[in-house]
């Protein structure tokens, strides 16, 4: 009878609907993180490339892949852990003093040693994006 067919379909659709929602909720944080750009970070220290320059404060050694190089200016992305629930990335423009095959020596306003800088990312990131830090060895 037509009446029972509709009942059967709605019952089945209802069960599927709630199952799908349950699965989505269960995997929601994993899905969410999977869709986020995956980044690798490293901690930077203050230091300088040429040995005889003693004044090292304000100058930091940053791996080459971490700096978007635009002539003598560059841009680095660092993790700001202001909001403990979500790890977000912020942009910082720096001036590049010197370079060797491994590191850049950069100085910029607002940099501090112990900063986590992104040196590899699966998708391109911009200011304030949420990211998923791979192999997160941060404290």
């Amino acid at each position, binding site marked *: 009878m037509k009446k029972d067919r509709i009942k059967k379909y*709605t019952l089945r659709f209802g069960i599927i609907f709630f199952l799908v*929602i349950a699965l989505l909720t269960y995997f929601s*944080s994993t899905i969410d993180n999977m869709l986020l750009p995956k980044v690798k970070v490293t901690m930077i220290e203050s230091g300088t490339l040429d040995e005889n320059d003693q004044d090292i404060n304000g100058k930091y050694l940053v791996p080459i892949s971490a700096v978007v190089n635009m002539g003598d200016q560059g841009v680095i992305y660092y993790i700001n852990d202001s909001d403990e629930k979500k790890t977000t990335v912020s942009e910082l423009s720096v001036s590049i003093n010197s370079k060797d095959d491994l590191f850049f020596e950069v100085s910029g306003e607002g940099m501090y040693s112990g900063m986590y800088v992104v040196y590899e990312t699966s998708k391109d990131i911009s200011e304030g994006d949420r990211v998923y830090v791979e192999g997160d060895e941060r404290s």
Partner: protein
Amino acid sequence: MRNRGGIVKRMKKIIKYIFLILLTAVFLFPVVYMIACSFMSNSQVVKMLDFTNEEYKQINLIPEMFSLEQYYQVFFRRPEYLLKFWNSVIMTFPTVAGQTIVSALAAFAFGKLKFPFRDKLFFVYIVLLILPLQVTLVPNYIVLDNIDLLNNFLAVILPGTFSAFGICLLRQSIKYISDSSIEAARIDGASYFRIFTSIILPQIKGGLITLVLLCFIDNWNIVEQPLIYFDDEAMYPLSIQLSNFSAGDYGIIFACGVMFMIPALLIYLYGRRDIDSPFIQVDKS
């Protein structure tokens, strides 16, 4: 001569059908418009809901760029909405179940059994049913505080279960059941409970489904009680999240609404045949 009468009759029929379609359109339009908006892109919705610019809003059902972006955002990128959806489920399903059982029992007593003060007690029930929420909101907080039920789901479930709404609804449908069948069963020596389960329940299926639907809708859109009785934000149902949408989330308000509507729609579709005839004496089929 006859076919001229036929033509006039057919014209009347057509006009009636047009008027019917028009009427249905008026009733369905906002909901259809809401569903249409849920397929629009995020930017279009934000532009639409922004009332600061001066030009008039055109109602366009066709989205500029059909996109499932809103649904994608709601289902995949907002884990907290899904958790809140389950808060709503945890709060609503026990309430609906509880209210149906309690109301069926009480309605049977009010409907068919005679006892002293029956009508006066029923009048008290109706008054308590119609009391608006604000009257008993703060004293209820005191009572719940003393039973220290605050900040757990029972604080919303219990008042919902014992609401008098179901009793009035089911008493109305029980009244249409003929007394003869009950007399016969009582003469055979059946206990009241057996009478209740075997005779009453099957005949008021329509009333029960209507009660389930209305009670579900009422508790699904609940806002005041959780806000006051729960302390931490994680226990709030989705209805509160829907009602105070910060500007940031405007884009997905329609998709969230549609997702929020599906359970109620399912219950309605499931019991559609019975809802249409909640109080019919003659049982269908």
